[in-house]
């Protein structure tokens, strides 16, 4: 692949406090809070207080094993945390402080991912038991299981919602990416993408929802064009290979700038973009920046801030959360 070092990746802050591996980070919809979670079974909420990053709250006591993933509700008032203990805790801040207001139980074993749909109506969860669960959240503030999807043949690593539709993407140890949509009273899988040669760790949509980016144990990132939910079969339009030397655990597609960030087991956060026009048949993605020597261990998660398009948060095995500024 091409290397165009046109961007600078600057470490702005290293947030310490977690006592073990940090597995995930999630920005609140307004970008004012950053949530992180990890093997110390806690969720930490950070914010930038007059130029300095501070830990505002530690959410503990709800889980007795690793908290693997966190996701905010679109209104920003609630946070869902998924744990290896098989449950998902829902934290509510409408009465002031964050309180655990519900626990979703049903998965047989480790829950590995959680995502809140854009309308706030649904929460998707997935895990080691090979299932994807769709939970509905109604006006009575009750959570109900709307569907249990058994399409994957191995553990489901990641669930990500479409930016505007009630369409869900999931990735798995079975090397595939699947798409689900509501179909009458139930949910169905309407598309399966194959092409990665090992576990697909994560997937993210672009701003329009007509492309997704996926990352894999196979050390590649793939871009897929998908005219969903009813259109023709999705196609892989580009493969980014030759940069990552270890499994790639997460990808985030910047909804404003279009830049793609990746988190890799080779201790690096990288930023890619496709130079030129969107209409090119064989688009080539170039490496624009990387956090060389910036992180001491595996990077497990990465997410662009929804408020500041140049700001990126990452989570690492070394117990830290890092804030990066990607600029020209």
């Amino acid at each position, binding site marked *: 692949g091409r290397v165009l070092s046109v961007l600078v990746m600057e470490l702005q802050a290293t947030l310490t406090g977690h006592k073990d591996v940090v597995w995930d980070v999630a920005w609140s919809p307004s970008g004012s809070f950053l949530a992180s979670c990890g093997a110390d079974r806690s969720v930490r909420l950070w914010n930038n207080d007059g130029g300095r990053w501070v830990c505002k709250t530690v959410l503990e006591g709800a889980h007795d*094993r690793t908290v693997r993933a966190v996701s905010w509700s679109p209104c920003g008032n609630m946070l869902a945390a998924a744990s290896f203990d098989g449950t998902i805790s829902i934290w509510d801040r409408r009465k002031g402080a964050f309180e655990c207001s519900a626990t979703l139980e049903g998965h047989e074993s480790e829950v590995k991912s959680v995502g809140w749909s854009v309308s706030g109506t649904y929460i998707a969860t997935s895990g080691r038991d090979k299932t994807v669960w769709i939970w509905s959240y109604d006006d009575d503030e009750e959570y109900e299981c709307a569907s249990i999807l058994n399409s994957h043949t191995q553990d489901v690593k990641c669930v990500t919602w479409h930016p505007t539709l009630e369409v869900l993407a999931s990735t798995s140890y079975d090397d595939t990416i699947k798409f689900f949509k509501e179909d009458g009273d139930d949910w169905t899988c309407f598309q399966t993408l194959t092409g990665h040669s090992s576990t697909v760790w994560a997937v993210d949509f672009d701003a329009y929802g007509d492309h997704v980016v996926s990352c894999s144990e196979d050390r590649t990132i793939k871009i897929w064009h998908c005219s969903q939910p009813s259109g023709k079969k999705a196609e892989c339009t580009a493969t980014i290979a030759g940069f990552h030397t270890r499994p790639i655990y997460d990808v985030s597609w910047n909804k404003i700038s279009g830049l793609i960030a990746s988190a890799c087991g080779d201790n690096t956060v990288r930023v890619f973009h496709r130079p030129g026009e969107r209409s090119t048949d064989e688009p080539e993605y170039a490496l624009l920046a990387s956090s060389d020597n910036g992180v001491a261990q595996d990077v497990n998660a990465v997410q662009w801030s929804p408020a500041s398009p140049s700001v990126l948060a990452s989570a690492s095995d070394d117990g830290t959360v890092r804030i990066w500024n990607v600029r020209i």
Partner: protein
Amino acid sequence: QKLENSAPVIRESAEARRTTLLELDDLQSDPFDTREIFDLIRVLNDPEHPLTLEQLNVVQEGQIELDNQNNYIKVLYTPTIPHCSMATLIGLSIRVRLLRSLPPRFKVDVEITPGTHVSREAVNKQLADKERVAAALENNHLLKVINQCLDITQQHADSA
């Protein structure tokens, strides 16, 4: 309980590694060598026999690849029989031993020697999945079994 491999070939344990003068000097930094990595894993207990992985020839020093400069270690191990149902557990024990003993800067791959096990690809994929390994280490039942493989106190007493 019927043993899967009732008559394994047993080999002698290696002599103790000799400490060099350089290593005794705390002011000098000395790189790891494959023998040090081998010493960490050769003493692990086989889950089935009261023998070490070295005695069963499951691990060998020559099957360890070490790159100090790039902080990389690859360990190949050889199950005693191609249908060994303990293959994943043995691999997990080697991985956990190295995880607990080496500085975190090292990237470690643990894989079955090519051509020595029927489910090699599947086992290798499981061992490479850090999320599954992390989850396994939070499973008390599994952790107990792994810790039995890692319980080398008796052997330390013998060699002291």
